[in-house]
């Protein structure tokens, strides 16, 4: 009898399974599929997908159950609740970015600013459905920048971190699908065919070194709440540009970024438990995330069209470059270049679109910081 009881107890956990957990397994499997088969942000979607399955097993020991602390919950406490992981990742990202082409034509940064419109418009829209802090956290999906979204959602103590992360990284991967229809809707074929010959300028090494310091100081004055976010990004870039810390720069770009990415995905998955994720709010958040990306794109394109009103014939900009102002780097820049080539096989926009794309990295971080400052 004891034997059978002991044997049956091995399977008693099946009774704790809920249909919501099974739904989460499906979502986890979908994320893994998208990561492997479609190569959509695999470095994050794969750990998130696996983690979603791991934490949604009944009484999973990966997350805290009662008094027993689970490792993923411990990781969350150690690196997410204090925003440490996204900030460390930002050092790596900063070290990866070459701001050189952007510094040659700094006016392109204005498109990065315009393309943050989706964030603020989504805040306006999400405010009808969520309280202000959750609405702001959801709006930052439009930053098209995972670490910024995590940082802002964490600082604002949003209860929707898991859904926000899934939306942010999924839409970043879906940029080639989301942006082209919006760009085509807002531009004429004639506008999409506008050529922008690229003339290489020159930027001194001193400018490249001073740039991250200046940006940190300016952003710090306006949005002190987010100075860590801008500061860590710019610190990474200073490592890259200073010229005397190449090994540290390479470590930040590769080893540090990879290590953080591994634990970040799993840690975010810790927030994807069925009770937090399988609810109507999640669908609404996914829809609002799409709105954010669409209006980011629209903001950049329409700003370029506005600028064109004041430019003489022959000097007009291809308004598509405005769409690259979102932070999804380098996908957005490449999408714009591809669209230009589709209209005219000699219309190379890559240098402009990538520069605007890089400016989106800075602008999205500052936009996140401004939101935090405005809400504090």
């Amino acid at each position, binding site marked *: 009898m004891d034997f059978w009881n002991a044997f049956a107890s091995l399977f008693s956990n099946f009774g704790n399974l809920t249909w919501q957990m099974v739904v989460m397994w499906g979502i986890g499997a979908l994320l893994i599929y998208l990561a492997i088969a479609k190569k959509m942000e695999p470095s994050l979607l794969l750990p998130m997908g696996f983690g979603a399955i791991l934490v949604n097993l009944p009484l999973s020991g990966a997350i805290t159950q009662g008094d027993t602390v689970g490792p993923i919950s411990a990781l969350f406490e150690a690196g997410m609740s204090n925003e440490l992981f996204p900030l460390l990742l930002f050092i790596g990202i900063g070290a990866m970015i070459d701001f050189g082409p952007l*510094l040659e034509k*700094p*006016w392109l*940064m*204005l498109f*990065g*600013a*315009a393309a*943050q*419109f989706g*964030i*603020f*418009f989504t*805040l*306006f829209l999400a*405010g*009808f*459905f*969520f*309280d*202000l802090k959750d*609405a702001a956290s959801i709006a930052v999906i439009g930053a098209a920048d995972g670490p910024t979204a995590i940082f802002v959602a964490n600082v604002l103590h949003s209860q929707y971190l898991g859904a926000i992360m899934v939306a942010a990284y999924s839409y970043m991967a879906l940029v080639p699908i989301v942006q082209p229809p919006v760009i085509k809707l807002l531009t004429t074929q004639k506008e999409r065919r506008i050529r922008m010959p690229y003339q290489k300028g*020159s*930027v*001194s090494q*001193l*400018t490249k070194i*001073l*740039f991250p310091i*200046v*940006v940190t100081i*300016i*952003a710090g004055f*306006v*949005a002190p709440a987010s100075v860590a976010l801008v500061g860590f990004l710019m610190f990474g870039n200073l490592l890259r540009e200073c010229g005397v810390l190449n090994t540290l720069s390479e470590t930040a770009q590769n080893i540090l970024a990879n290590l953080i990415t591994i634990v970040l995905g799993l840690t975010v998955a810790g927030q994807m438990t069925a009770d937090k994720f399988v609810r109507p709010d999640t669908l609404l958040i996914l829809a609002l995330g799409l709105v954010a990306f669409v209006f980011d794109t629209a903001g950049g394109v329409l700003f370029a069209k506005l600028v064109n009103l004041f430019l003489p014939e022959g000097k007009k900009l291809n308004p598509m470059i405005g769409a690259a102002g979102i932070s999804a780097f380098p996908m957005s820049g490449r999408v714009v270049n591809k669209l230009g080539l589709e209209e005219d096989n000699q219309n190379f926009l890559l240098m402009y679109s990538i520069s605007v794309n890089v*400016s989106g990295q*800075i*602008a999205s971080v*500052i*936009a996140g910081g*401004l*939101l935090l400052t*405005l*809400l504090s």
Partner: protein
Amino acid sequence: MLHLTSWMTTLPIMVIGMVSIVLVIGVIVLAVMLLNKLTSRK
């Protein structure tokens, strides 16, 4: 539940936020132009 009056809070944030980001980026653009001017080789 719909928060129908939320626009009274979010609309000003939207306007101030967009104006602020354009201003901040504008200042950075000016700073970079200045840096380029000061550090360029004659």
